[in-house]
């Protein structure tokens, strides 16, 4: 009897010998890893070890050297397919001062070709439906973080890049986030996440990359 060979799907994200420096200060170098669909890579390391910088390189910031590939092609942030496939929550979200919370998400949903009622459902899911008609300037930091997470969940994605998503979330929010990420992973999404929360890393992460070690 012949054994059927299990074909491992090719990695969705491939990083080869990546280096980034600010001026003469090298933040990280010789970083190589691969992330497959349905897997979560957790980035860990002390402050200043380059976690955020590495995440930014994954979504289009040019590294000093090395290559980042998505789905077999070099990352190109201007490619509409890349933008359709990759969702990011990198903690630097700005807002239109004159659009309400719901209007922000509605705009995003429509821009991704999603039905507009999806925005309401996601607001409900992330727990900020009560502030749907408020302007972003009036939100608390925790509410802003939930809105930032909502930007990822209001549209489909194949790769989710997160930078300390647990920040400013209460315990219920953190539990919700972990469950949501697990669901999406089971659905085939790949996740790359920087986090200081050991519980979140243990619950969702499959592989760990230590920076600054």
């Amino acid at each position, binding site marked *: 009897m012949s054994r059927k060979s299990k074909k491992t799907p090719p990695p969705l994200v491939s990083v080869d010998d990546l280096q980034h420096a600010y001026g003469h200060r090298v933040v990280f170098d010789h970083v190589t890893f691969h992330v497959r669909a349905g897997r979560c890579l957790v980035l860990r390391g002390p402050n200043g070890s380059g976690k955020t910088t590495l995440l930014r390189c994954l979504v289009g910031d040019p590294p000093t050297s090395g290559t980042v590939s998505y789905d077999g092609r070099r990352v190109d942030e201007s490619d509409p397919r890349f933008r359709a496939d990759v969702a990011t929550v990198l903690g630097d979200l700005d807002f239109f001062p004159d659009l309400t919370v719901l209007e922000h998400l509605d*705009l995003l949903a429509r*821009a991704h070709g999603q039905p507009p009622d999806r925005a309401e459902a996601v607001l409900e899911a992330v727990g900020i439906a009560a502030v749907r008609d408020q302007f972003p300037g009036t939100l608390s930091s925790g509410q802003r973080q939930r809105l930032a997470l909502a930007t990822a969940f209001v549209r*489909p994605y194949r790769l989710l890049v997160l930078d300390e998503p647990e920040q400013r979330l209460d315990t219920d929010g953190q539990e919700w986030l972990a469950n949501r990420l697990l669901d999406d992973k089971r*659905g085939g999404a790949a996740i790359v996440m920087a986090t200081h929360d050991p519980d979140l890393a243990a619950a969702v992460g499959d592989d760990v990359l230590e920076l600054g070690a």
Partner: protein
Amino acid sequence: MTTSVAPAQPVPSPRAMRRRLTRVRRAHANRTWLQVAEDAYVAIFSLLMLGVVVGAAIAQVHHELLGCPTAGCGVVREELPVVAAVGTVGVVLRALASIGPVVSDAAFGQWVLATPVARGGLLRRAFAAAVGVAVVTTVALPGLAMTGTTASAATVVTVLVGAAGVGLLATAAATAAQPHPGARRTVAVVGDLLLAVAVVLAAAVALGWSWQVSVERSSASLVAGGLVVLGLVAVVLASTRVSRLTRADVQPGGALVAGLSGAAYGLDPSLVGEVLTARRYRLLGARRSWRGIGRGFGAVVAREAMRLGRSPRRVLALAAAAVVVELGAATGLGSVTTLLAVVVGYAATRWTTASLRIVWRSPGLRRALGIDDMALLVGLAVPGVVVCALWAAGVTALLPDASVVTGIVLTVAIGSGIVRSAASAPPRFDGPLVTSPMGALPPGAVGAVVRGPDATVLAAIAPTLGAPTGWSLALAALVAAWVLWRALAAVGDTRPYSERVLEAAREKRES
């Protein structure tokens, strides 16, 4: 989420996205038509007033230039357009390379550009705006300079058409270079070189050199037309590349424009410089640190001197300022040259007191440094005043009728101005606002614009009016002393307004 990201309905077009955004924003409009008309009236009135003032000043200079009989005036009149053209293209290239030219603010970048909507369509308006501004600038400034020449209308039109073509080419080149850091630096360097050439040409003109270039009208028209056609083709080609720009290419410029707009809106000219400086060093990222020298007061002076020494490009601005003064002297401004010198010198040396400004507005920093306020003020101001003195000495040596006293007055006047602008109290937004035709402003907001130039002009008024040497020196010294006194008073009470009101009420109760 699943492995399939096929959208449930078509991704909207850029036009549909923009329309949606506009419709949603309009739904939040909370101003009546009367209020909008009032705002429009204030804006138009302000622009008209500014236009009248600037127009009158330009007309006056124009009149002086045309009526001036000296040979120097004639040379300046005829050669200024060349200097203006070269300098303008240099400035435009520099600005385009620094800002974008295609820019997007952070919110638009994160919420709209990050979606699969066709990026080229979303950014094309920003590109068109950059083309428009560049063309208008490259046409307007040389055009203005040409009004003082004896060139015929046909010649002026030909030159302006050519200038428009150059503006188109500059924008196309900067757009093509935008995604590539090396190419952007090249565009910026070309802009700097053109500026340097303009300064050299201006110096030559100031020294009375002129160059006669005669070109057949038909050839000139051909060249001008060719530049426009080439420029249009280049712009069309560049517009097709706009869709390839990434958010990292366009958002930093948008943040810079937003910061500069905010600083201008807050009537705080120093903040404009701070925004540009902060961006420059953020892009630089890191640099080898230089160890300090000395202790206490000496260490502050030494560190400030090192900081100034790390900006060699500013020497170009100082040289350009000196050339402007020399040009003014060549056109026979007479005693008004002193006034021109202090104003131009103030603009060129204002950057030397940036540290003083930061420390003066930060009680925490002053506390941390642990040095007496007067010593800190002097320590941070000394290197800047030395730069003023060197510049003033150079300018004085170039001016035909200037003396050592002129140099001293120039130094004290400019030094007083830059210290006053850096060490004055900022407008306080935490207290009652003052109603004005421009809306609600914090007390001192409008004054912040003139605080600095006022001391400079006041200190230089005596020699401008031909007063005796003693009076000139005495007035300059008096202004300097007043500036120091006001600077120390500015760091008085920096507590929030509400705290001061409560404290005053408590004292009144207790007394």
